[in-house]
Structures are given as structure tokens and as C-alpha cells.
């Protein structure tokens, strides 16, 4: 057998196949880049024709396929959160339907409602109002650790005497999943929406690819705006019955008149 000739033939075949695959991948990449550039250009033209301005640094973001997620309401974690802040002696009472659970102790009151909404006032022992943002952040971190919120990616942002806590899911923000702690003179006011446990998708779950351009068109077709300052892909929490909340993918679009969420499933716009 002529091994040398066989090897030459194999090399030629491999070169051809590799070349074809390389061309295929490159073609996909180039055509996608071209399409994106064309889309961006068309959008700028359409927005300009409608008299809507775009901030100089604004680029049409890439679109990521995101799952429609569910998160179960966890009464056990809600209990831990409430007892962590109000003490183990806190008394809980719930509505007959179980939709609202209220906790009371000499350290304050707290209420968990359907959809993961939480609100209350806390008066920790020896509480003093923080002097600056740094102290407020430290106190908030201590309180949230006490409440069992130890998610690795928890982000705290302070603004004066108000600290907000949030964390991303699937690498993108959940726009309305925020706990806000406002440090007043005598007490701390807590409010927000939160989920415990890992959100999930099932085998036949839905992954949505909702292009940024489509979101922009839906927004401008029904809302009066003059300037777009930015947009970001993420989730919005909404009640989905059965003690669950749904994390719906969509886009947050920041404009001169405020921030809007464009829902990828309902194709609707809501104010954030």
C-alpha cells in the first residue's frame, strides 16, 4: 500500500473539509455582524424620522436568549428572614388564604405578601441612624446577613440614608427584585420584592429571543418619548399564581421621560 500517497489524499480532503467549515463559521459571523449593523442603522433612521434622539454613547445591545423562569414562594425562607430581623419571639399570623403573613415583635413588624412583596418597619436594639452612606451600607449588610440573605452576588447600593439590595439571575438584572432599607431617625423602613431559592425552568420550558430592535419599536409605537438614553436586557418579576412568581425576560429602556419595561411575552410596555 502506498501510505505516502494515501496521506497526501487525506491531507487534501481534510484541508477541503476544514476550509468549508471555516468558511461556514466565518460567513455566519460576518452576516450576523452585517445584519446587526444594518439593524442599528435602520433604527437610528426610524427614530430620527420620528424626532426621537439617541444618546451619543448608545449602541444597540446584543440579544441573548433568556429562559422564562419560575420561582416558588418559600414560606420557610420568609420565616427565617422575618425571625432574623425581628427575633425568634416574633409572632406570625396569616390570612385565611395564606396570601399575606404578618410578623410582629417588640423589634417591629414585617409582612410578606403574594408575589414576594415584603414591607415593614424594624427597630433593632441600640439602633442609631447612620451618619453617612458608608455606615448605612454597613448596617444594611449586617441586617441582611442577619435575615439570611447571603447570596454571593448580592449587590448593595447606597444613596443617602437609603440602601437597596439586589442580585442578578442568568447573568442579567431582575429589575424589580429589590429590597430597599430606609434608615430613619427611630426606625428602619423595609420594602421591596424578593425571591428565595433558585428560579427554575422545566424540560419543556420557554426560551425567548427578543431582539432589542423589536423592543424599541414596541416602545416608540405606543409611548411619547424624545430621547433614548440606554437599554438593558433583564427580567421582571410578576405574580403567577400558585404561590409562584414568574421572571419574564424583556428590555428596560431608559428615556427622558423615565424607564420602561418591554415584555417579551405580552409585547407590552410598563413603567418601571
Amino acid at each position, binding site marked *: 500500500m502506498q501510505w*505516502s500517497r494515501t*496521506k*497526501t489524499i*487525506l*491531507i487534501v480532503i*481534510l*484541508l477541503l*473539509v*476544514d476550509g468549508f*467549515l*471555516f468558511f*461556514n*463559521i466565518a460567513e*455566519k459571523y460576518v452576516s450576523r455582524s452585517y445584519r446587526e449593523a444594518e439593524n442599528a442603522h435602520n433604527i437610528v433612521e426610524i427614530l430620527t424620522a420620528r424626532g426621537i434622539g439617541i444618546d451619543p454613547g448608545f449602541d444597540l445591545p446584543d440579544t*441573548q*436568549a433568556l*429562559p422564562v*423562569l*419560575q420561582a*416558588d*414562594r*418559600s*414560606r*420557610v425562607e420568609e*420565616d427565617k428572614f422575618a425571625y432574623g430581623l425581628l427575633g425568634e419571639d416574633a409572632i*406570625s399570623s396569616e390570612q*385565611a*388564604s*395564606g*396570601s399575606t403573613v404578618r410578623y410582629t415583635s417588640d423589634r417591629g413588624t414585617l409582612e410578606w405578601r*403574594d408575589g414576594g412583596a415584603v414591607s415593614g418597619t424594624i427597630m433593632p436594639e441600640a439602633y442609631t441612624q447612620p451618619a453617612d452612606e458608608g455606615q448605612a451600607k454597613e448596617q444594611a449588610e449586617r441586617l441582611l446577613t442577619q435575615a439570611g440573605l447571603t447570596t454571593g*452576588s448580592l449587590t448593595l447600593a447606597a444613596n443617602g440614608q437609603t440602601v437597596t439590595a439586589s442580585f*442578578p*439571575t*442568568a*447573568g442579567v438584572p431582575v429589575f424589580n427584585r429589590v429590597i430597599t432599607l430606609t434608615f430613619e431617625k427611630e426606625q428602619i423602613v423595609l420594602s421591596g420584592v424578593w425571591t428565595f*431559592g*433558585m*428560579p*427554575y*425552568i*422545566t*424540560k*419543556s*420550558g*420557554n*426560551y425567548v429571543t427578543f431582539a432589542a430592535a423589536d423592543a424599541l419599536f*414596541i416602545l416608540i409605537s*405606543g409611548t411619547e418619548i424624545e430621547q433614548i438614553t440606554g437599554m438593558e436586557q433583564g427580567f421582571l418579576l*410578576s*405574580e*403567577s*399564581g*400558585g*404561590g*409562584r412568581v414568574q421572571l419574564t425576560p424583556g428590555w428596560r429602556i431608559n428615556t427622558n421621560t423615565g424607564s420602561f419595561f418591554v415584555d417579551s*411575552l*405580552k*409585547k*407590552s410596555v410598563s413603567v418601571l
Partner: protein
Amino acid sequence: MKHLNPKLKNRLKNTALFVLTLLLVVLTALSWLGDLNLGDLPADSWLGRLYISLSYGEAGGFTLRSGEFPAARPVEIAVQTETGMKGAQYNENAVSGFLSVLEQPIGAALSAATDFELAEENELIEALGKPGVFVRYHCALPLSLIASWMGGSYHASSDPNAQSLFFGADGVLWVRTDLGNLYRCDLHAAPDPELAAEVSGQACTFAAQTMPEQTAVRPETLLLSDTLTLPTVTSTPVDIDIEHAGNSLTVMLEAFGYDTYVRNYPDQTTGMRVFVNNQSTLRVGQEGEIVFRANTAEGGLEAYLKNEIGENGPLTYQVDYARRLLESILQSFSTDASFAFDGCTESEDGKSARLMFRYFIGSVPVEGEEGILAVVEYQDNVLVSAEVHLRTFIQSGISHTILPTRQAAAAATGGPYRLAAGYFVSGTDLVPRRYYLTD
């Protein structure tokens, strides 16, 4: 090349072959991964997890559940341990609390079911006095469906329509069917009732324990002393204004596989708007009525691929597809009413199935015609017909206290009955009531 040393030439060719083969592997992987999405990957495989980590950051921040999303949840759940019994009834949050810790073990237990045999009532009565987990659904459901929703896969030779289940901690599963028959099955795995130690629930007992002389109710009837207070509700059809429905209409048309600009005309007789596709029609009425009809199997909506059916059978896929379709429609019209699967009838040859979905307010079903959200029909794997009635439910501000199960059980005569709660039409409102059900 001709003047090269044959040894060197051979080495060069070998190196080229190796590099080109390696390049082939890399390029094939890139080409394949570029087109890959989570829909193509096995749900809970290591590849799925790797893909999630790569695509969505460290650990992804979400999980893939092996079960299907449940189209119905239990209306009652209870655990009995050596120290006592607690449970929840018609309270979706409390039921969810129990399910969060018991769902997977129940799925695993149902996966271990093999052969069912008819059992005697006194055997069940004895078992109800021992530790175990009890679950009751509003309507009877095939065990395979429940197993799939709980993350298990069903292998048993028969698939009884289960109304209630009691998983004895000793490894015996007791199943009450819609016809009142009682079956038992020996399991290798049983959910541990102690798993729900931290879950809050109401104190309860089985009728067999506290009123053994009362034979008018089933022995597994869950008895709670606490009253159940529920709101009275007003129900109104969703007003579908075709001319101004905009995105809502687009989402609904997409859900049925219709293009936004599909040909349509008003039906003068019924006042409905008719959207016409090649082999199907979609009629949309202003009073929240949506009727989809396929003229041929090709014009229907393919719910799943025939070769996709696993051990759990086609019903799992049919129910799940219909559930997602109905959710899309409800969401498109911003109706946050909740609903659940309410049973199915299959043809004798098993080729067609008729599925019903019912509105629920919290965990309580809306009974009668008023409560029917949809009836969908399948021919094999194709959804060929769907009738949807969109409604909104608004609390009227008045609350109703319904009779506690303990008192209702004590007052029962005749039977044996099951105790249930539901919303019934009363004048212009829907009012919650306790009622008795025979098999």
C-alpha cells in the same frame, strides 16, 4: 517536496494530518455549539449545566427541573409523623410550602411504583394511623401525569386515575381512584414526612382517626377545625376589542401559529372576527370567546414529536402544550386568572383526547360552566380544536366563611362522600361553598 528526505517528508505529512484532524474537531465543535440552544440539550445533563454556566455566568442562577411544569396542584396535602399531623387545604401558598420539600421525594416514590392491587378499606384505615404523606387533587389524574409533574418517570403496568394518594412511610402507596376504588402498591422508596418538619401547616386528622364510626365520608378525608374564609368574586368575560387589541392580538395569533396579517373578516351571524389560515380558522368574539378549528391534521398545532414520547406517555406532552398555549393567551390579554387541568377523556383507540382546563381562584376551583377556561382536542400529537373562554375575576370585597371539614364530615349522611370546596354562581357573584362529592 520531491528533494526532501523521505523520513522528513513522512514526518511533515504526519504532523499535517494531526493538525488538520485537530482543526476539524475544533471547527465542528464551534459550528455545532454556535447553533446550540437550551431547547436542544437534555434537560438536566452535565452538558446542559455546562451550557448554562457558559451562557449565563457562574452556575447560571437558575436550574432545570426534570419534571414538567404542573398543570394542576394538590388542593390538600398533609404529613403525619410520630409527633402529630399537619396539613393545608385550599391554600395555595401553604400547599406550595409542603410541595417545595416533598415534590421530588413523591416523584421518586411514584417512579418506583410497579404493580397495583385492589385493597380493603380496613387496610387503609390502619395505614392512616401511621406516618405518611397525603395528597389530594381536585380532579382525578393519571398517576403518570402526577409523577411527571413531580419530577419522576412512571413505569408501572397500570395507570389509575388517582383522586388522592397516601404514601405510608413504611413504603406502601394507597391510591383512591375517581370511581372510589382503592389500590395499594409496594414501593422501594417513600417520601419521608419528617422532611416537612419546618413547613408551617394547620393541625389536622384523618376522618378514620377521629370519627371512625362515621362511614358517610371516605376514611382519608382530611379534617381541619379551622374555618376557611374566602372572598366572593365577580366574574366578567374579557372584552376583546379586535380593532384596538394591537400587541395582545399579535401574541394570541402567534400562539395559534397565525401571522399577524393573516386574512380575516367579520362573521355577520355570530359577530365574531374570523381569521383564516390555509387549513384552519380562528374565531375571536368580543365576549372573550376564542375558537380554533383545524380542518385537517396538517392545519393543527403539533404539540410534540411522536418519537419524543418517553415513559410518561403522550398525555404529559398534550397537557403541557395546552397549558403553555393557554398561558400565552391569558398573558396576551393581561388576564392573571389562574387555571388548572381538570381531567381528560380519551377515545378507545387512544388516538384522540379531549382535555379540559378550569379556572381557579387561589386554590379553589370555579365550578360549573362559568369555570371552564378551555376545552382542547388532540388527534395524536396534533391539537386540532380549542375553545377558550377568557374571563376576569374581581373580588367583590365580601368574604364568605365555609363550613369546616370536621363539621361537614360530622353532618354527612349516606355517602361515602368526599368533601370539596368550590365557587358556585349565586346571582351575579361567585360564592365559595363546601360540598359533598360522590364517586
